[in-house]
C-alpha cells in the first residue's frame, strides 16, 4: 500500500499559531520564547501571520474544515483581543471552520487582563489554558514565574467572567525541593477552581535551558513516581479521566487540539518556530515543516518560502514511530483503521513492533483491533516508543 491510498478528507486538520514573546523567559522552558523588550510589534507580527497563512495555502489549497485552533507561546495573552480577532478573521476568510471548532489560547496569570480576556472571547476563542504551574510561592519563585498563586486564581475567575466555560490549568510536579504533600496541595488548589481540564506535567530538565545549565535539586525518580501515583489517584477521585500521559479531563472535555496531535492528524503551523504536519501533494506525502524561530527573521520572511526553516517528508519506515509515539500516549491507544487512514501504511507495518511490545507486556493483548498501552506501557512509555524506532 502506498500513500496514494490515503483518503485526505479523513485526516482532520487543525491550526497552530505561535506567539513567541514572554514577559520573561522561565528557566525550565525550552519552547520557542523570547523575552519581550519594550512593546511587542503586535500589528507587524499579526500581518506576518496572515501573510504566512496565505503562503501556506497558496502552496497547496485546503478544503478541509479546521477542527481546532491553538494560540500557543510564548505568552499569547500578551496580545490584545483585537489582534487575536484579526488573526481569527483572517483564518476564517481563508478556511472553513468545523461547527464545533475548539479555539484555545494560552494565558499567563501574570499578564491576565479582563478587557483582553473579553476581547479573546468576543473574537471567537472558546477555550483558555492558564499556565499556573504551582500555587506555592516558593515553587513559583524557583520556576521563575511572574505571578503568585492568588494571581492565578484571579486570572481563572477573570476567564470565567469573560465567558469561558472550557478552561485548562497547566500544573507541574517534581518541582525543586517539592514534597508529595506540596504537590498534592497544588492539585487540590487547582481542583478547587473546578476547571474542565488539567495538564499535570512532570518537570523535566530540558537541554538548552537555564535549569539544564544549573540543575536545581528536584525530587529523585522514586519520589516523583510516588507523587505521580498519588496525584493520579486524587484526580481520578475528583472525576478527572487520565486520558494521556499528562492530560486529565472531565468527561467529554478532552483537548481536541492536542488529541489531533496525538491521533496523528494534520495541522498547519504559522508563527515563529511553529511546527506543522500536513498530508499534501499529488502523492499525499506527509511533510513536517518548521518556521524560523527568531521573531525578527520570521517577520521578515513570512509570506515566502524563506520563512520555512526546515521541511522533511516522512519516509515510509518512519511512519510507525511517528504515529505510535503520539497515539500510544493516549490511554485508549488507537485502532488499526486509524493507523492506516492517517499514515497510508498497512497496519501490518506495526506487527513486529507490536509483537515485541506484547511480549514485554507494554500493550494489551489484541482482543479487538485496538492497540492500547498497558499500565506498564504507560509507566515505561519510552521503552514502548523505542520499539518503533
Amino acid at each position, binding site marked *: 500500500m502506498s500513500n496514494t491510498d490515503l483518503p485526505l478528507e479523513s485526516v482532520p486538520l487543525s491550526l*497552530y499559531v505561535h506567539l513567541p514573546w514572554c514577559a520573561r523567559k522561565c528557566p525550565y522552558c*525550552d*519552547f520557542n520564547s523570547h523575552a519581550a523588550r519594550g512593546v511587542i510589534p503586535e500589528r507587524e507580527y499579526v500581518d506576518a501571520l496572515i501573510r504566512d497563512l496565505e503562503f501556506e495555502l497558496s502552496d497547496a489549497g485546503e478544503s478541509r474544515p479546521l477542527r481546532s485552533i491553538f494560540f500557543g507561546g510564548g505568552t499569547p495573552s500578551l496580545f490584545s483581543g483585537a489582534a487575536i480577532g484579526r488573526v481569527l478573521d483572517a483564518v476564517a476568510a481563508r478556511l472553513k471552520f468545523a461547527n464545533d471548532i475548539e479555539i484555545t489560547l494560552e494565558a499567563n496569570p501574570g499578564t491576565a487582563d479582563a478587557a483582553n480576556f473579553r476581547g479573546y472571547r468576543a473574537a471567537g476563542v472558546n477555550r483558555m489554558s492558564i499556565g499556573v504551574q504551582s500555587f506555592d510561592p516558593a515553587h513559583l519563585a524557583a520556576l521563575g514565574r511572574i505571578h503568585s498563586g492568588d494571581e492565578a486564581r484571579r486570572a481563572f475567575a477573570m476567564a470565567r467572567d469573560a465567558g469561558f466555560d472550557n478552561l485548562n490549568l497547566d500544573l507541574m510536579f517534581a518541582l525543586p525541593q517539592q514534597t508529595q504533600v506540596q504537590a498534592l496541595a497544588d492539585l487540590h488548589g487547582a481542583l478547587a477552581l473546578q476547571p474542565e481540564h488539567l495538564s499535570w*506535567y*512532570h*518537570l*523535566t530538565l530540558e537541554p538548552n535551558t537555564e535549569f539544564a545549565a544549573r540543575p536545581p535539586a528536584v525530587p529523585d*525518580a*522514586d519520589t*516523583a*513516581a*510516588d507523587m*505521580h501515583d498519588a496525584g493520579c489517584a486524587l484526580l481520578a477521585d475528583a472525576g478527572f479521566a487520565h486520558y494521556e*500521559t*499528562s492530560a486529565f479531563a472531565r468527561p467529554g472535555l478532552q483537548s481536541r*487540539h*492536542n488529541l489531533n*496531535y*496525538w491521533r496523528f492528524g494534520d*495541522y498547519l*503551523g504559522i508563527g515563529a518556530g*511553529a*511546527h*506543522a*504536519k500536513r498530508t499534501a501533494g499529488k502523492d499525499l506525502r506527509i511533510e*513536517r515543516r*518548521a518556521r524560523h524561530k527568531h521573531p525578527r527573521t520570521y517577520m521578515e520572511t513570512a509570506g515566502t518560502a524563506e520563512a520555512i526553516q526546515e521541511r522533511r517528508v516522512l519516509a515510509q519506515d518512519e511512519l510507525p*514511530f*511517528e504515529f505510535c*509515539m*503520539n497515539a500510544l*500516549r493516549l490511554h485508549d491507544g488507537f485502532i488499526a483503521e486509524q493507523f492506516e487512514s492517517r499514515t497510508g501504511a498497512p497496519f501490518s507495518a506495526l506487527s513486529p513492533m507490536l509483537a515485541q511490545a506484547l511480549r514485554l507486556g507494554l500493550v494489551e493483548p489484541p482482543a479487538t483491533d485496538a492497540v492500547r498501552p498497558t499500565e*506498564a506501557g*504507560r*509507566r*515505561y*512509555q*519510552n*521503552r514502548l*516508543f*523505542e520499539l518503533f*524506532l
Partner: protein
Amino acid sequence: MNLANIRNFCIIAHIDHGKSTLADRFIQYTGGLEEREMTAQVLDNNPIERERGITIKAQAVSLDYKARDGQVYQLNLMDTPGHVDFSYEVSRSLQACEGALLVVDASQGVEAQSVANCYTALEMHLEVLPILNKIDLQNAEPERVADEIEQVIGIEATDALRISAKTGLGVAEVLEAVVLKLPPPKGDPAGKLQALIVDSWFDNYLGVVSLVRVINGRIQKGQKIKVMSTGKDHEVSMLGVHTPKRVFKDALETGEVGFVIAGIKDIFGAPVGDTLTQAINPCTEMLPGFRKIQPRVFAGLFPVDAEDFEDFRDSLSKLRLNDSALQYEPENSTALGFGFRIGFLGMLHMEIVQERLEREYNLNLITTAPSVVYEIVSGDGEVRRIDNPAELPDGSEFQDLREPIITARVLMPHSYVGPVMQLCMEKRGVQKNLRYLGAQVQLEIEMPLAEVVLDFFDRLKSVSRGYASFEYEFTRFQTADLVRLDVLVNGDKVDALASIVHRDASYTRGRDLCERMQEVIHRQQFDVAIQAAIGAKIISRSTVKALRKDVTAKCYGGDVSRKRKLLEKQKEGKKRMKQVGSVEIPQEAFLAVLGVDRKK
C-alpha cells in the same frame, strides 16, 4: 642495485618517541613524496593506527638517497609494529634488516618495549644505531639518556646522534650514518630464490600482497614461485616497491625489499615469516624463525542483534584476510546466543579487532571478559585446554588445573619500584630479578597471564604515572588453585559472566563483582537480583531496584523531532546491551569482572 648500495633498516622506538615523524622526514628529505602529498605520518595508513599512534601492519618504503660520497643508495626503511602483542611480527621485520635505528625520546628515556625489541635486534646480529630525538625540548637530557642506553641495552651511545625529527635538525646526519654505519645486505644474487615474507595483507583489488625481503637470488614478474610452508606454486603477476607511492618493477634483486602479488587468495597462503622460493628447482631450506601464531587471550563476541550473526561471520572472515593472528570458532552461549570465541595475541590486539568490527563493519557487539587458556588434566592423565571459563568443570572432575605463566619485565624510574612491586605481588607475581640500570630499574617477574589480562596495564600505568613500561613472554603452564565464579541474574546462571579466579581471591572478587554489576546494570521494570556463586554456594548478592517510571512528560505536540532525538539517544545507549532472559545487561557488565580490583 648493487648490494653495497643497499641499506635495509628499521626504527625501534616507543610510542610517541618520534618514529613516524622521523620516517616522514626521511621521505621528505629524499624526495619520496612531493610536499603536498605528505600527510602526517605516511606509514601508519590505517586510521586506527594513526589515531593510536601505533603500527599494526608492517610497511616498507624504498628511498633513493644521494649520499655525500656522491653515490646513490637505496634505503629500505621497514616499519615495525610497536607493541608487545605483536612481537613475532617485529622479529620478522627485524630479520629483513641489517641495521636498526634505536630512537629514544631524550626527554623521557628508554622503555621496556624498545629494550625488548633492541635485544631481539642484537640477537639477530643487527647493527643498532642509537639516536636521541626531541633534543629541541627544554627538558631533554641527552647525556642522561645516552648513559641509560649504555647501561640498559649495553651499546655504545656516547656519540649517539642528537636530533629533532620535528624540526628536522640532524636528520641529514642520520641518513649519512645509515649509509656509513649500517652494513649492506649479504646474499647470493646468483643463488636460488629465497625471500622472507615480512608481512602479507589483503587488498580488495590486488588480492594478497606480500612484503618480502629477497635474501638470495632474484624474483621477477611472470616467475613461478613456491610458498614453502604450504608447498603451493603461484605465478608472480606484479611486484614493486613503495616510495611510498606504489611503483611497479620487473624484478626485485638480492638484498632488496618490495611487494609481490602472485594470485594468492588469502593471507594464510602467504603467512608472515614464511619463505618464497622458485617453483622449479626450489631451495630446500626455509629461512629460520617461521612459526605459527598462538593466540593467548580469548573472548566471546556476540552480536547484540541475533540477526547480525551471519554479517558477523562475514566480517570476521574479511578481517582475517588481513590478520592471520585472528582465530575464531563459533560459540553458543545460553545467555548471549550465537557468536564467536575469538583468540587474540593480547589485549591491544583484542581492542583493535573489536574496534574494526564495529567501525568498519558497523556491527553491534557484546564482548565477554577476556580469558586466558587453561590446561585441565583429567583423572586419566589426559590434558585438554579450555579458553572459556564457562567450560571449566567441577573440581572433582579433574586432577590438575594449570594456568599460563608469563615472564614480565618492567622498566621504571627508581621512585616507582615500591608501588610497582606491590602491584605485582597483588597480582600473584614472583620476583625473579631486580636490576638497577642508571636511572632506571628493571624488574623481572613471573605472573599469571590471567592477572595481566585483568587490569594490569591500567593499574601499572596509574601506579607509575605512566613511567613504567612493560613487556612479557609466555613461559609455562603451572598448577594453580582456581575456581569458577558464576554470576546469576534473577536466579539464572549467565554463562558469559563466568570467570576463573584464584580461590584465595574468590570471595573478594565475588563481592566486588556484585557491587559493580549493580552499578552498571540499569534499573529496569522489575527488581534485578545479582548473585555470585562458586559451585552451588552463593557467596555474594546485590539488587538493582526496579525503575518506577520512564516517561517523557511533555510532548510539544507540534515538534516531534526533539522527542525523537531523545529516544534515539536512549536507544543508542542500549545498543551495547543484551537481553538475557528478561533483563537488559549492558556491555560494561560483561567486562565488570575486569574492573573489580580497580575500585580499591
